[in-house]
């Protein structure tokens, strides 16, 4: 499993949510996510679901404010999640 680097912009529409920014191939995207899911400036995203030269396609836990659920990010935006439990 991997973690996506994020920046916290503030609270979401509800106190349980955090409003964050992520760096994508097409520029910054914002998304409201579960605040408890965040870990030291990162967001768990599972495994990437696609790849191309220098970029990985990741599926976010919720759609971005512009409606994207899967976004391309630079490989450098991801770090391994050493705490994740094993899956298939």
């Amino acid at each position, binding site marked *: *499993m*991997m973690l996506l680097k994020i920046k916290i912009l503030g609270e*979401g*529409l*509800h*106190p*349980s*949510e955090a*409003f964050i920014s992520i760096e994508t191939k097409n520029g910054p995207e*914002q998304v*409201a*996510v*579960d605040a*408890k*899911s965040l870990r030291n400036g990162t967001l768990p*995203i*599972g*495994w*990437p*679901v696609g*790849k191309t030269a220098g970029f*990985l396609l*990741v*599926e976010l*836990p*919720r759609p971005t*404010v*512009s*409606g994207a659920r899967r976004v391309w990010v630079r*490989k*450098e935006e*991801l*770090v*391994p999640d050493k705490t994740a*439990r094993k*899956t*298939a």
Partner: protein
Amino acid sequence: MILTDREIQKLLKEGLISIEPKPPLEAYDSTAVDLTLDPLIRVFRPGTAGLIIDPSAPGYKVTELIRGATDPQTITEQGWDLPRGTLVLAWTHERVDLNFEGKVAARVEGKSGLARIGLGVHVTAPTIHAGFPGTIQLELVNHGPMSIKLRPGMAICQLIIETIKGTPSKAHKSQFAGQRAR
């Protein structure tokens, strides 16, 4: 396949999914578990009626739109009356985590007793995807002829949990085996 109460409780006990705070036994029925209303809702400002939203416009950002068009409202024990024909945003009090090990997804649906007085709890977006963590956002709409009093902690919706077939790509390591992010 829809999970029974016993199967939901088994997954909770094994830590393969979580619902916090844990629902009491009376919150279950044979194939669902009730979730409750969080005190905080967001109410659209009266001045927004009649405005036109263009979701296809470049730069459209739904969260910013909602933040600017609504006010937070905390419902007290005395309750808050949802007028007829009104949409408010609400959340479940419970935080749900459908982590991938559980191999389930879910749907949030209304409760029949509330439906019969006109209360809808979502607007065509009931799916809770596998892997979802968080409180569940609801779109409460009063379709009935009378106002409906909302109270914090009331059973507002039911969660129906279903098994998924296979492993989603984001939970499947093999295609990226050996991948090293820098």
